[in-house]
């Protein structure tokens, strides 16, 4: 394998991992606050279509990114009102949000099918971003660096800051947090909004960076992988990074192996690999702990109402 191929594989790997990492980081924060939002795929699609529509109409990918972020938040707010204010079942509401997102994005995107825009480019000057091997580090777009910064930022926020502690308290024991005087619902709203914003950006990574176009169901199920990764990571940002890049690596290497004519496994088996890996890791984790709860926030998915 020549170094050029290796560099190219690494670039593809990073690009394949980034949208999943973004969406999963957002979901991680929401879940840490005790909210299970299964609507990641729907929020990603709304972000993807809004990002593309605005970038196409305005000619600015930066505006597109902001639109995607806002669209993600707006979609998340639909969930928040139903699940947090009206105490609807979170699982059912999240699933409904995904189905809603598929339909809404398809409706909004109908006029943009078959159009394209300039790809979201690298942020460093060409001397670095197009260098034969330095581009592995410097050749990426803003969302790649943002996602990596967020891994550190969110980890620090949750572990080392007071607001992070409060957010975790809300997710672990909402009644106690409420008794001490913290606004449980408001904190959960904020966490869900943050999750929506990152899911929106993750979706926009498809329509602005990976494949600059809009087509129905553009994200093709990546939102579900992001959800699985949050569990896989045991709600830790560092492990989430590993998981997302592992997924990106398996997906990329699968295709590279096929292109190289290496057929050690049937393509169908290779296509199953990322999902098998998730199941395997989940099983190992639960065997290792024997607590059966995998460090999940204790109030995850439970409705809260201050009586």
């Amino acid at each position: 394998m020549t170094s050029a191929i290796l560099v190219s594989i690494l670039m593809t790997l990073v690009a394949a991992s980034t949208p999943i990492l973004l969406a999963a980081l957002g979901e991680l924060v929401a879940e840490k606050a005790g909210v299970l939002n299964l609507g990641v795929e729907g929020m990603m699609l709304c972000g993807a279509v809004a990002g593309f529509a605005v970038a196409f109409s305005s000619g600015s990918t930066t505006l597109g990114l902001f639109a995607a972020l806002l669209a993600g938040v707006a979609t998340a707010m639909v969930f928040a009102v139903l699940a947090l204010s009206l105490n609807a079942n979170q699982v059912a509401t999240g699933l409904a949000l995904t189905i809603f997102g598929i339909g809404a994005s398809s409706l909004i995107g109908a006029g943009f099918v078959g159009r394209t825009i300039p790809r979201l480019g690298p942020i460093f000057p060409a001397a670095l971003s197009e260098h034969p091997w330095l581009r592995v580090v410097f050749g990426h777009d803003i969302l790649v660096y943002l996602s990596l910064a967020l891994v550190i930022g969110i980890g620090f926020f949750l572990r080392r800051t007071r607001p992070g502690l409060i957010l975790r308290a809300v997710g672990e024991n909402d009644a106690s947090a409420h008794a001490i005087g913290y606004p449980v619902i408001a904190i959960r709203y904020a966490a869900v909004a943050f999750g929506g914003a990152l899911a929106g950006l993750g979706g926009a990574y498809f329509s602005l960076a990976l494949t600059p176009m809009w087509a129905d169901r553009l994200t093709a199920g990546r939102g579900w992988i992001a959800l699985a990764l949050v569990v896989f990571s045991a709600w830790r940002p560092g492990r989430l990074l590993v998981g997302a890049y592992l997924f990106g690596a398996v997906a990329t290497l699968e295709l590279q192996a096929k292109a190289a004519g290496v057929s050690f496994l049937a393509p169908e088996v290779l296509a199953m690999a990322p999902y098998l890996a998730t199941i395997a890791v989940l099983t190992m984790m639960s065997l290792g702990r024997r607590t059966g709860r995998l460090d999940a926030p204790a109030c995850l998915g439970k409705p809260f109402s201050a009586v």
Partner: protein
Amino acid sequence: MTSIITRRRLTFGAAAASTLPLVGRGAQAQAPLGVGFVYVGPIGDHGYTWTHDQGRLAAEKHHGAKIKTSFLENVAEGPDAARAIRQLAQAGNQLIFTTSFGFMNPTIQVAKQFPKIKFEHATGYMRAENVATYNARFYEGRAVIGTIAGHMSKAGQAGYVASFPIPEVVMGINAFHLAARKVNPNFKTKVVWASTWYDPAKEADAAKALIDQGADIITQHTDSAAPLQAAEQRGIFAFGQASDMRAFAPKAHLTAIVDDWSGYYIRRIQEVMDGTWKSTDTWGGIKDGFVRLAPFNEAMTPAARAAAEEVQKGIVAGTLHPFTGELKDQKGEVRVKAGETASNEILSKMDWFVDGVQA
């Protein structure tokens, strides 16, 4: 006139249909002919389903107020499709097009229950008194782009982003490769199975992997324009799929195999109106207008352009068949004898690759 079917309208349509026999022939002749379409994907896919819907719109434009079309999109293949087809039948449609291979058994099943309604099933092989089949010889288009690839690839190696190894796809790969080999006897075609019809990010990554492994021209048998965009990004050439995809990759897009169902839909609807419709098996190619090539990119060399036009002319005139023997599979077994051409039977069951294809 278009209508996306809702349950309420369906009920109304069913009621209207049940009263029709009482009204008598005169009134019936004035009512627009109901034509239904069942799609496997969303019409917004800009791919296979989109091309069928373009055909529906063309028929609507052509026949105007004489017909009333409706469609159901995202219908899953398999038993549930029968429900969708039955809905359209009960809504008073007199001609129903079911546009995906997996609708074959449900179409036959529903057609038995509605003997007076005409059905048309795309890409299948089961017919009945009131069920016709139709398909397009896309492999003819593949032979043209294979010829172009043979001329335009400096590395002599194409990357093929494919979906699933079904006969339709295998046939396309072989046709492409055989045509390219005629130009460059050492030509290699590398196939990556994306194991999906539609996953833009994965299709793009598959194209990138093929480019990394030395391909300098990309073609695809998946539905999105993503492989084309990957080729544009890497500065190499590629071909569009199902529709003219130039807008996605103005530099990379050499041409595209364009599906065009409009002529067939217009004609068959006319035949139902005239009462001359018969159950037939239509397999149309470039000659019949089912398959077209999108305008050639100016970057194409004069030699490639001339050769592509030559192949097209040969196919239309019937002097050139993309599958002319002797053709051997990779085990060396002769599949098409010297001087013979592959029959429809051989084509529609093709599960072997010709020499030089890495799949």
